[in-house]
């Protein structure tokens, strides 16, 4: 009896801390809504359709930021996804066993480097390199809306490249785990039917497609919220443009740059509303991504019940 009641005490005691974690997430949502009420009431949905951002006149439209965030993240994914999948396939299916651990370590190191270091590198190394690429772009291509504008170096292309570098380790490490959960019989079956390496791996990738979409979305979530590196290279210009060469702005960057300058309560409130929407978007993208990865992992586990627990076996 006393043992039982003491166990209940333990459960309640640890539960309080677990509850605290839950409360923090709720508090973030609550606080963001509370601080942005001013702006929500004042501008309503027009906030997200208006292109004008003029703090001096008190006019706030967030379209350029949501555009810049989505555009930079999508371009980054277009660069990062093939590379990340290539790495995942190489590490899990093709490379000699001795190379595997070092390669995993090195790709994960890419994720450990602080954002600010990427930003510093971006300003002084990447941007000048991108500028010379832009200068070298033939005049005929420069007529296209995609490459219009002066070759500044800072702008969408630099931001997308740096985001791609930062996203690669996330997408590749989750894809690698997902590929690991594809049953060996799948591959052996393909080889037994006379498939080439490519065909066997393609079958495995197809089998793992749900998880791989999840891995790509995880990268998307990272790219959407990335702040410092992007702020330092994107040029911080609130203009909607198709051009990869044009300096633009993202949601995270505008908060980072203007938050401490926002003396006017409405200005601050508008910035917090941008943060609120960034919070909601990343929450949705990450939840969906986890759902996909999780459903993949579960079906994978069901298929390999005969094998020993993966983690211990790997060591």
């Amino acid at each position: 009896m006393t043992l039982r009641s003491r166990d209940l005490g333990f459960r309640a005691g640890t539960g309080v801390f677990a509850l605290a974690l839950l409360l923090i997430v709720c508090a973030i949502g609550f606080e963001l809504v509370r601080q942005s009420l001013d702006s929500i009431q004042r501008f309503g949905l027009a906030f997200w359709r208006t292109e004008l951002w003029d703090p001096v006149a008190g006019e706030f439209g967030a379209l350029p930021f949501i555009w810049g965030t989505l555009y930079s993240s999508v371009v980054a994914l277009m660069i990062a996804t093939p590379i990340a999948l290539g790495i995942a396939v190489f590490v899990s299916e093709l490379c000699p066993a001795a190379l595997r651990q070092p390669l995993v370590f090195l790709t994960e190191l890419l994720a450990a480097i602080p954002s600010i270091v990427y930003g510093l590198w971006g300003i002084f190394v990447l941007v000048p390199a991108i500028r010379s690429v832009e200068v070298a772009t033939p005049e005929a291509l420069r007529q296209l809306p995609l490459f219009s504008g002066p070759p500044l170096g800072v702008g969408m292309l630099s931001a997308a490249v740096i985001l791609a570098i930062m996203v690669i380790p996330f997408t590749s490490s989750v894809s690698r785990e997902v590929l690991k959960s594809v049953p060996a019989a799948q591959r052996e079956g393909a080889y037994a039917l006379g498939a080439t390496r490519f065909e066997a791996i393609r079958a495995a990738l197809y089998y793992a497609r749900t998880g791989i979409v999840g891995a790509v979305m995880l990268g998307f979530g990272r790219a959407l919220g990335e702040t410092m590196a992007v702020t330092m290279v994107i040029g911080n210009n609130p203009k909607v443009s198709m051009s990869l060469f044009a300096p633009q702005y993202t949601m995270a960057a505008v908060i980072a740059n203007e938050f401490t300058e926002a003396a006017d309560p409405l200005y601050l409130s508008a910035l917090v509303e941008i943060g609120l929407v960034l919070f909601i978007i990343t929450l949705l993208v990450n939840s969906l991504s986890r759902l996909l990865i999780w459903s993949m992992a579960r079906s994978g586990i069901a298929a390999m019940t005969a094998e020993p627990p993966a983690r211990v076996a790997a060591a």
Partner: protein
Amino acid sequence: MIGTARRKLVSSLFVAFCAISVLGALVPLGFVLFFVVAQGIRSVTIDFFLQMPKPVGEPGGGMANAIVGTLMLSGLAAVMAVPIGVISGIYMSEYAGTRLAALVRFAADTLNGVPSIVIGVFAYGVAVLPFRQFSLLAGGFALGVMMIPIIARTTEELLLLVPGAMREGALALGATRARAVFSVVLPAALPGIVTGIVLALARIAGETAPLLFTSFNNRFFNTDPRQPTAALTVQIYNYAIAPYDDWHRQAWAGALVLVTIVLVCSLLARLATRRLERMHAR
């Protein structure tokens, strides 16, 4: 059999693409590390660690205040995050099947994915605005919020790795649940948990965005928790976007110090996990 030849060619091209894509990660990594070391090494001097920032135009000076600031901010974050993180990790693993555990797990993953700049906005709202003062405390709070989910999830995973027989043995001897956890299960997983905490510290020490409007910045030395405080990362940012060559040099030096911290922690953690995995495999 032209078909076979083509299939083999496609296959080889695919293998080649995968091998080359590895360079897509290694080349940027090499470039970043090369420039950080090459540019930073010249400016990492004793002065860099021991001197205060000099006024604009005066060469020399260092980041002593920012280095101490980063240490204090990370320390504060750990004081807040380690108890909450470890104990909620214990709850999630001990009561893994319960609805609250599932909910907390979801919350931890959500919090882990929240952009760091949004954490900054939140911390500004609850720890700066009410006191009308940027402060060391607010910065530590922001970093602590970021650190909690990392520690919670690591603790949970590592506790679940401890063989069930150990817990059952303790319970069979008449131990309470708390006793079984704190005297048997937790000590078995402790080296791994400490490794996780070190990695989490390395990660938040490199954060900039949540500090921009919480701990703000300070040109002077500060240990008062109610005052704005410099941090290594924020200092690098301010120096990088300023137009002075001398500041750029110092920013590179700061980056080198940061990257060294991260590298050393990752390497140590990797060695530790290897030993742990070997222990568990036995």
